[in-house]
Structures are given as C-alpha cells and as structure tokens.
C-alpha cells in the first residue's frame, strides 16, 4: 500500500515525472493528492493521512511545524518563477519592465489582467509584488481578474479572455500552453523568492522519507529545473 503525499497543484507537472523516476529508481510507488497548499494544510491539521507535504508556500510548512505535525523542519526544494503570459497571436510586445502594458493602461486599452489570488495563492502574492515594484499595481488593479490559483489565471490568459497575465513559469511550460501562448520570464528580483518547501509529516513511512531525500537529489532537481523552477544550491 503506497503512501500518500500531498502536493500543491502547481508542482504537478514536475512531480509527476519525479514520481515516475522515483519508481524507476527505487521500485516504490507513491500516491499524490493534489490540491491548493492551503487546503492540504488544513486537511493535515484535521488528520489527513498524508506523509509528506509539498507546499507552494513556506508559510504552510512552517505553520505545521509550529503545530508539531511534522518530523523536523521544512526544506526548500525549489524556487518558483513568474512569467508574463499572453495569447500567441496578440500584438502585445512583452518586456521585462512591462512597458507595453503600462502603455495599455495609460491609453485605456488594457481590459483584463490575470493573476492568481494574492490573498492566498503564493504566485498571486508574487505577482502583486512584481506589479508593485514596477509601479503598475494601482493602475492595473481595476483590471485584474483573479484566479483561484495560478492555473486558473493561466486559463484566463491563454483562452484570450484576459489579454495578459502573470503566472508561474512551470505552468507556462506545459505543452498545451506553449503552443498557444508567448511568455516572458520575469526577473526573480522583482518579487520575494517563491519558496517551494516540503516537510515530512509525523506519520511518514520509509517510502516517504526516501522520496523526501530523492527530491533533494540531483535527478529530481534536474527535472524541477526542466519544469521551470530554479533550484537552490545543494
């Protein structure tokens, strides 16, 4: 009976492949329950049988640690990156300073700008920071459409319902999106690091512990990097 680990939906792309590799290398299967990091945290607090939590936000793992639900401290296994995303055939030029978007707001041509919910989604928080850094927050705020999570924000932007959006790099790399969108990586300096943390929960078994370690090893890090994460120094 393979252990269940909980993972934020946003790491699904990479994690799927890592789990395959893990199975290939160790012969152990894991089952993964995806949800928002917040949901998962709550479920863990209410006794969910998860053995490992991969959160998109350092706050949740910390919270669980404080509440003595974990085996030890959390570890940052990757850092998320933001990209500016737009539908393929828009004429919008994408640049790191978002000047084209600035012009749109000034000319009143910006209709909808998609981000994840800055209230609770880590990529939403980061997106807000980026916009604030660039001094665009106030002018874009009225045009925001806010996704439940970063995937939803990407859906907004990729379907053309919103002109442009700030989403995670890992999502932008999804094959279905790559064909339909153009993206531009946002400098990591424009927001606080998007720490993807993980923590072993107190009922973690051997397999989970193995996987916890596996995630910190080279093979997993390579996969993570391929899926648009910066990987912290070993």
């Amino acid at each position: 009976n393979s252990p269940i680990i909980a993972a934020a939906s946003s790491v699904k792309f990479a994690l799927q492949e890592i789990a395959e590799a893990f199975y290939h290398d160790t012969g152990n299967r894991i089952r993964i329950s995806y949800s928002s990091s917040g949901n998962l945290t709550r479920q863990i607090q209410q006794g969910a049988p998860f053995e490992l939590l991969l959160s998109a936000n350092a706050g949740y793992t910390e919270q669980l640690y404080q509440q003595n639900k974990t085996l030890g401290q959390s570890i940052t296994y990757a850092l998320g990156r933001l990209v500016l995303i737009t539908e393929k055939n828009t004429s919008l030029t994408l640049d790191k300073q978002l000047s084209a978007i600035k012009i749109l707001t000034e000319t009143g041509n910006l209709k909808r700008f998609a981000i994840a919910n800055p209230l609770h989604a880590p990529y939403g928080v980061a997106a807000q920071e980026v916009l604030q850094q660039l001094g665009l927050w106030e002018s874009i705020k009225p045009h925001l459409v806010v996704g439940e999570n970063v995937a939803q924000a990407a859906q907004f932007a990729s379907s053309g319902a919103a002109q442009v959006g700030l989403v995670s790099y890992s999502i932008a790399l999804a094959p279905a999106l790559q064909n339909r969108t153009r993206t531009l990586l946002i400098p990591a300096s424009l927001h606080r690091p998007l720490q993807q943390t993980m923590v072993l929960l107190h009922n973690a078994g051997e397999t989970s512990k193995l996987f916890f370690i596996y995630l910190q090893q080279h093979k997993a890090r390579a996969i993570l990097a391929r899926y648009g994460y910066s990987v912290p120094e070993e």
Partner: protein
Amino acid sequence: MDWQALGLSVKLSLVTLFFLLPIGIFFGRWLAYRQFLGKSILQTLLALPLVLPPTVLGYYLLVIFSPNQGLGLWLNKTFGTTFVFNFEGLVIASIIFNLPFAIQPMQRAFSSIPRDIREAAACCGMSPAHVLWKIELPLAWPGIISAMVMCFAHTLGEFGIVLIVGGNIPAETQTIAISIYDRMQAFDNQSASIMSLSLLLFSMLTISFTYWLSERSQKKHV
C-alpha cells in the same frame, strides 16, 4: 462582512430567478404535457450540467464565450459585449447551471395537475395563456416555489463556475461565495465563519419566509 459581495450574490440570484422562472415554466410545462420521441433524451440533457465539475463546466463556458473566437467573437461583434468577467456572464452561467433545478421540479408540478381541471378551464373559454395564468400556475405553485428556492440557494452557494467565468472582480463578479472561499483559503477563518453564518441566516430568513407564504396560500384549499 463583505456586504458588497453579498449584495452582488443576491442580485445575481434574483436576476437568475427572473430569467429562470419563465424558462422553467415554459420547458417544465412542455415536458409535462407533451409526449414526443426523444423526450427522455431531452430530460437527460437537462440533468447534464450537474454531471461536470463546476469549474470544468466553467472553463468550457469561458472558452465558448471568450471574445477571440467562435460564439464569443460573434456575440462580441453583435452585442458589443463579452460574456466573461462581467455580471452578464455570471447570469448566463448561473442560468445554465441552474437549469436542472428549475425545470425538473416544475415539470413534476405541472404534470400533477389533473387533466380534467385543465379541460374544465378550456371549457370555461380560457385561452391557453389564461389557463396557464389562472389555473396551472396557482396549482403548480408549490413546485415552482421549491424550484425557485433551490435555484436561489444554489446560486448563492455556487462558486466554481462563477469564479472562472467571472474572474473574481470585486463589486462586479466577486460573489459572497467566492469571498467566503477566499477568506477560508487565506486562513481567515473568523471572517469566513462570520460571513458563512450571515449568509446562512440571510438565506434562512428569505427562504423560510418564502415557504411560509406559499404554505399559507395553500392551506386554504389543499
């Protein structure tokens, strides 16, 4: 308490009911009184909006109404408006996901009216519209009311579709359900609970008043 969101939700519910009432009556009545080939298929189609997860249904609506292509493009050209990220879009989405709750109970309500009573009405010289208004609607009323109550509650509570089609824009598409959900996700349990409770209380008052009114009007003759 997010009064704005509550207001929006109530407005959305009422506008939805405003459209659903005639739609439900029309189709409910039609399904109740007509026999035709493929009736069970049609009835089935009506239940289907329930089968898909709301978010998924919402995504398909988003794609369909998105102004870049197909229907959305045409709508945009024709009416100069899109049906995503605005109140109109929410209304359309609400209507679609409430169809089963509106039509099914009304169909049952209409089909439980004895045939000879409708016949007697025709023999009194009432036109079909008149019969509908004076005989069928009053007799189907309990069923219609409970259909409307379900739609009302369901619209207040639905957030999956609304979130996707509406884009969670404060004062425009951020309903109370989304607002509660957001607080909850942000671990603002207290706000979420207060808002949930207020919403429950408000619905409770509205709905039980509705039921009480409808019971009272029934009591005399049932």
